[in-house]
């Protein structure tokens, strides 16, 4: 692994991309890594395309600018593939992880992303089945962990309990944990 990993999350306002990105950063921090997690604040509103960044490094992070050449791009809303430059700056050999019912090959073709790895999972369907709400951010965490190994699954689950334990009912929490595990196992690459 490189000593710094840079991620970019694409979502829509209200889908929880920032919360998900924070979860990964907070888990990595607990594992002794240096972290940064910051959204790109535009005119924030529900439904508008938004971006959140994560840096994870073995060494202290000095950079304070946005991520321009991510190693990993995560797309939590499938409709964004058509409307925002998803793979802009993405490392040619990087990883693209998309919430979609489509197969990796079809996403690869649509975006003309040839060398890197493409992973897909139907996170919205999993979220609906396990939590009853169409919020794909938590299942996407499972997919990202499987695809990148950026933090171990158990650490992330602990983090989720710690951060959202007070906000969510025990049933909701269990649903979210199940959604993460299900996506972890269901994500496919191609």
């Amino acid at each position, binding site marked *: 692994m490189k000593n710094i990993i840079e991620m970019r999350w694409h979502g829509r306002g209200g889908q929880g991309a920032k919360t998900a990105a924070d979860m990964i950063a*907070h888990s990595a*921090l607990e594992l002794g890594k240096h972290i940064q*997690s910051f959204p790109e*604040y535009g005119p924030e509103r529900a439904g508008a395309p938004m971006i959140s960044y994560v840096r994870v490094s073995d060494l202290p*992070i000095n*950079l*304070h*600018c946005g991520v321009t050449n991510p190693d990993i791009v995560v797309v939590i809303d499938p409709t964004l593939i058509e409307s925002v430059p998803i793979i802009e700056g993405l490392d040619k050999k990087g990883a693209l992880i998309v919430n979609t019912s489509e197969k990796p090959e079809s996403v690869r073709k649509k975006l003309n992303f040839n060398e890197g790895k493409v992973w897909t999972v139907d996170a919205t369907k999993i979220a609906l089945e396990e939590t009853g709400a169409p919020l794909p951010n938590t299942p996407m965490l499972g997919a990202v962990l499987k695809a990148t190994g950026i933090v171990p699954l158990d650490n992330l689950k602990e983090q989720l309990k710690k951060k959202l334990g007070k906000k969510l009912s025990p049933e909701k929490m269990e649903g979210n944990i199940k959604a993460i595990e299900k996506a972890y196992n269901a994500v496919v690459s191609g």
Partner: protein
Amino acid sequence: MENKYKIIPLTGDQAAAEAMRQINPDIVAAYPITPQTEIVMTFAQFVADGIVDTEMIQVESEHSAMSTTLGACAAGVRAMTATSSQGLALMWEVLYIASGYRLPIVMPVVNRALSGPINIHCDHSDTMGARDSGWLHIYCENAQEVYEMTIAAIKIAEHPEILLPVMVCQDGFITSHATEGVKIFDDADIKKLIGEYKPKYPLLDIKNPVSYGPLDLQDYYFEHKRQQSEAVKIAKEKIPGILSEFNKFFGKDYGYIETYRLEDAEIAIIAMSSTCGTARSVIDELHKNNIKAGMLKIRFFRPFPAEEIVNACRNLRAIAVLDRAESFSNQGGPLFAEVRAALYNNVSIPVVNYIYGLGGRDIYTEDIKSIFSEVKEIASTGKVKNLVNYQGVRE
């Protein structure tokens, strides 16, 4: 032995609020404004949860926030507030009263552009507008520095020979809304480190009556202003001693300025706040290509570290000063004007200005590389094409 601490994920705003929690001021009077909001929100939660002993006074504007903080401080208690942008602008007349009355108020400021047009993102036009207000100014690079400098600022402000208000600045959104791992030291240790506040001239000490704010005309106003400038000179002498105590505790080397690979550098940039972090990465990269680049980071804008800047720059061949504010003088930004004035008559090095990042326009490593390549050109030709340049703007 290293002091006890824990590393927790915090934004710059939360780091300022954590420092305030440990300072446990008697009074906080504040009005929320983006991107400072999270400081006030987090601190209000500490008050509501009974974690601090602070009396929080809700006010209807920043003018009232500063007036209330000022009144409380004059009465003889530790009082704090926090603001950004238009909020600081609305405090403007009261800022001068706080420093003129020599009240040791510490105020986190989250730098944000001033209207108009309206913009909520980072630049330094707000605090640069308060440049001559008699406040001390500290500019922080990251959330860790925000936490540590907010705590240290208490002792600087309250030093009996200084007694000046201090603003501790961080970059709006870039620092205030980015989460980083922040070392938070033990509550009891911090409490001991800053000690109890012993006001020198409390208004409520009825056995030793004092007046704050009487009419001060041709007979004495000038003497009081002269004393105020003397206080900033004394601050300049005392601050290194005060910081050394904090440096020992935090394991840091905080001073007026910080240099990065400047010792053997031929070209350098001078900057403040979060941009300095990005510049470090660029400098490391340039060194790999045998380009002798360095950086001088200015932490204290007041007192202005003129001697330190001159001494650190003596051997350079060309310098670029980066300003995140415009002064509309056609002579460059406020930092440039002061750095250039400090260098004049002392050294003869070409120095140019880059105004950048207004209204939150991001400054990338490529921008800083491009600035360095132009400075390198100046160093080798000795010719300055443009004294004032604008980086990252559409022309």
